[in-house]
């Protein structure tokens, strides 16, 4: 793998599928679905290949790509590279893990898309476009490119929710667009201020310019401490909407409930993680001092998220809402880890991003299977599912266990590592946060047991258990969740170098 176009190839490989799909008549359901699914395989294979090579010791720096793209201004007194936006891609262990997660979940979500009922062609076109955006976000080498890819996820997602969603889909799509648009606008301001002041949006250069005193002297215009503080706050809000941080979470509840389950797999599995990725990459990466300054409050926000989501999930009548609030709650663990500001905490936060991606996708995959048969996910209207659908019920229980952090599954590793981190620096906050561990068990068991255990409520339904085709993605996810839980070193190893870099930035 010495081709310098590897990353571009990886990111844009779904384009091939989009083009091919254009030639398939839209009435041919099977072909469209099959082609749509197959189109997600190239990025998956490429990313797995890269991951494998990385584990074998390949240096990811070799994959960096750089091409001049747009130059604003043409003043002779500025150097060539000032105000130049390059098309540049590069990845480290952290981004690579996120890319693998993205391409994997996309493939599985494509498999779960067999339950999509209409306009398959348009659906898969948008679906693949969404994948390009998601992959690009994690590989972007500068903030402007990051922003472009981020917006690229926004548009297809809007239509996917608004067109293929449930009953109240349009409202959900608009609130998705509004909240995220607002977040993007704030993010854009931050990016532009940084760009205007420094003349670059490249992450490494920015990092250098913001922190190296020598480089700081060469800035077009210096950044005062106060401005940095405000930029950080703005950045935090922008990604906080995405994550989401309470009280910016209302939009994602609607998306969770209204969007088709296959899309929610990506939404909860990857899109929310972009918030976490942004916080870690830009928040810690560019503003370590500010991050340190606010660390206590970030941890407190994390605990609030954790408990707020947990308590709300406890009284929801709709299983999807339980999962939505559970996502809010679990994103709190990411903040808890970040607020800890030590290696364990950051590792825990990244673990949680990956682990929640797997678990949320797993649970929504089951929701899609369930909804297909019962036409409802209202908890009270289900019950005793273990009798008619033992396999699905068993998997739901496994998902609940993973979600509540049962050791041996990925959820425990992230929860444990994040709390391990926070207990070192802020033991009191952490101790309050552990209440969330109990509450998660309470709401998860309440919801899942009421659906699967107890007397059977639905004798009318000819509910069949999941078919083999449906079971394959379910088991792939389950195996991954358990593997990470049993042997977390396999996830810790690729992240090690990236986390060390961040710790250096934070100053130990």
């Amino acid at each position, binding site marked *: 793998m010495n081709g310098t176009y590897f990353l571009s190839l990886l990111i844009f490989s779904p384009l091939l599928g989009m083009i091919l799909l254009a030639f398939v008549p839209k009435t041919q359901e099977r072909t469209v679905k099959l082609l749509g699914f197959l189109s997600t395989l190239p990025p998956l294979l490429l990313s797995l290949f890269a991951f494998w090579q990385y584990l074998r010791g390949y240096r990811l720096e070799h994959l960096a790509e750089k091409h001049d793209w747009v130059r604003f201004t043409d003043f002779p007194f500025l150097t060539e590279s000032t105000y130049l936006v390059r098309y540049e891609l590069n990845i480290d262990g952290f981004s690579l893990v996120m890319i693998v997660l993205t391409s994997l979940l996309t493939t599985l979500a494509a498999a779960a898309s067999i339950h999509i009922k209409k306009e398959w062609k348009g659906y898969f076109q948008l679906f693949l476009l969404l994948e390009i955006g998601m992959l690009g976000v994690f590989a972007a080498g500068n903030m402007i490119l990051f922003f472009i890819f981020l917006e690229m996820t926004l548009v297809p997602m809007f239509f996917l929710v608004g067109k293929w969603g449930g009953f109240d889909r349009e409202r959900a799509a608009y609130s998705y667009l509004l909240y995220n648009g607002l977040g993007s606008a704030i993010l854009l301001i931050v990016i532009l201020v940084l760009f205007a002041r420094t003349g670059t949006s490249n992450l490494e250069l920015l990092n250098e310019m913001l922190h190296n005193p020598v480089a700081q002297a060469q800035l077009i215009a210096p950044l005062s401490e106060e401005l940095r503080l405000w930029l950080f706050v703005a950045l935090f809000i922008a990604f906080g909407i995405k994550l989401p941080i309470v009280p910016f979470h209302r939009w994602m509840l609607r998306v969770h409930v209204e969007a088709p389950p296959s899309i929610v797999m990506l939404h909860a599995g990857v899109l929310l993680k972009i918030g976490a990725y942004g916080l870690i990459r830009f928040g810690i990466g560019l503003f370590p001092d500010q991050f340190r300054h606010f660390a206590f409050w970030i941890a407190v926000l994390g605990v609030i998220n954790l408990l707020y989501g947990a*308590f709300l999930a406890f009284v929801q009548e709709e299983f999807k809402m339980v999962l939505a609030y559970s996502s809010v709650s679990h994103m709190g663990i990411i903040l808890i880890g970040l607020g800890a500001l030590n290696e364990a905490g950051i590792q825990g936060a990244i673990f949680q991003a990956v682990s929640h991606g797997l678990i949320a996708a797993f649970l929504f995959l089951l929701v899609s299977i369930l909804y297909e048969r019962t036409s409802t996910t209202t908890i009270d209207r289900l019950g005793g599912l273990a009798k008619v659908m033992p396999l699905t019920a068993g998997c739901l229980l496994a998902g609940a266990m993973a979600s509540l952090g049962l050791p*041996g599954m990925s959820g425990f590793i992230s929860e444990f590592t994040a*709390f391990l981190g926070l207990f070192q620096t802020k033991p009191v906050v952490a101790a309050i946060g*552990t209440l969330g*561990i109990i509450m998660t068990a309470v709401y998860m068991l*309440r919801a899942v*047991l009421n659906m699967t255990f107890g007397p059977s409520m639905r004798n009318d339904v000819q509910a069949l258990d999941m078919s083999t085709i449906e079971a394959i993605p379910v088991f792939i996810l389950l195996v991954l969740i358990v593997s990470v839980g049993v042997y977390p070193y396999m996830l810790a190893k690729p992240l090690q170098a990236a986390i060390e870099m961040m710790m250096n930035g934070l100053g130990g």
Partner: protein
Amino acid sequence: MMEIAWIVPLFPLFSFFFLLAVGKKMKETSAYVGILMTLLSFLLSLAVLFDRLGGSTYKAEHVWLTIGSVKLTAGFAVTALNAWMLVVVSLVSFLVHIYSKGYMHGDERFSVFYAYLGLFTFAMLGLVLSPNLLQTYVFWELVGLGSFLLIGFYFYKEEAKAAAKKAFIMTRIGDVGFFIGMILLFWQVGSFAYDDIFRAAEDGTLSQTMVTLTAILIFIGAVGKSGQFPLHTWLPDAMEGPTPVSALIHAATMVAAGVYLVAALFPLYEASETAMLTVAVVGGFTALFAATIGLVQTDIKRVLAYSTVSQLGYMMLALGSGSYVAGIFHLTTHAFFKALLFLAAGSVIHAVHTQDIEKMGGLWRKMPLTGPLFLIGTLAISGVPLFSGFFSKDEILVAAWTHGHVALFWIAVVTAFFTAFYMFRLFFLVFGGEKRHDEKDVHEAPAVMTLPMIVLAVLAVAAGYVHTPWFGTFLGDWLTDGAYAHETAPGWIMAVATAVSLLGIFLAWLMYGKRSLARDWLSSRVPYTYSLLWNKYYIDELYMRTVGYAATAISLLLSYIDRFVVEGIARLIAATVHTSASLGSRMQNGQVQMYGAVTFVGLALLVVILAFTGGYL
């Protein structure tokens, strides 16, 4: 053999996966897979034990997770305690596996039951082998999962669902204490390994407050798992599970995990007087508290459940009184005689199809094997001389007395009296008197069920002789590496213990055997006390009305805030945008004067802003 001790838990794990995958097709032949696998576990455990008898501790570790420069390891250790526990656990599990073949016969989910048994046994054996706290915690939770699945085995029953949920959540509350204690220890010691923790506790790296704090936090975990007051309420409800499960999990092994944890961390506890006292007081209180509830219950399994809670209290009392050996010794004898009692109870339930002891009676003749076996168990738990429970209970009483816990000593004595009374009450009501049930065809259980009981009965008698003041304290010497302190116990303690248990038996005989004392003697004289006991001190109700309602109230409150305040603010912002937009659009009315005015105002605003900020934003 010790190098391959890690294989011991893998046999039942294999059984779990194998039966989940193909068990459905195997139907009841699944039992043989489970039995064979636990037999292999047991044999290997025995080999490990013999190896350990002559050797020293063996330990092996591998990197499990790295956090920066910190390496967390996973591995296994064969210490004296571990090797001993391996044998106890795998033996009881093996016997329960055999017994279940008869008991679960005809159940639709027969193979699933065996799969779950395998998972549980795996977790318990893994717990016992763990060389560090983190790994212990991992298996600790998995044990909880196994228990949860087995309690909820009859998932279609509302009670089983509630019981499974309750068991998981109540123990999880305790687990959080364990979790916090473990992490705090880690940051103080820099390692999860038991050895490092003990070293730190010894050389003073750990401050006294930290030792006490972490020891008590971890003890909260033990309280949850071992059904100690105030987290005991799940254990009696756990009787919703099939009876073999009650024997294996809720009598012999899992509930003993809490005791095991305190024992495994004993040097940490010893370093703090306060922690030791807490353990002793909680244990002693629970022993008496549960025994009083056991006096009046009428469900055969619930009586046994409360006796388990009570006996676990004894073990905690022993540990808190500084006698590591007495705790483990009683854990062992209790594992055998309580498993025996539960299995015998299962045999009775199997025959009469009820758990209500008021509806039994007269079974002594009908069940010529179960009756005597149950009697042996009852004699053992009552502490009648020459039975195993006598020796281990005596050891605990001696420990409490010599450690200076006079009040706790007398509490333990009173508990011994109650225990003898309610156990024989149970015995006479079930086996004595005349028949009160409507089952016509009562017959003895099949050999596959009675055989394991016979083995346990032998052990319920014989296990006491591994550690007696008369023939030698083999277990104690070995567990403490020869450093066992031979306390010269006052002889009257043994006499008192014997007297109270015989007195309890005599009283039970008077009331339920001979009936020369009216049965409602107690309930008619102290009706309020009686109903307090009958309702288990209203603890469940108390929790429901406080914690339960509070959680719901907070949730509902937050849900209103979420729906109206948070959403309201978002709506307000949207409305503001909407209004300002319509205001803006009204300005575009086509009149040049208007446009001019807007332009001018805008320019003025910009100038003002720039003037104030000095052109520097």
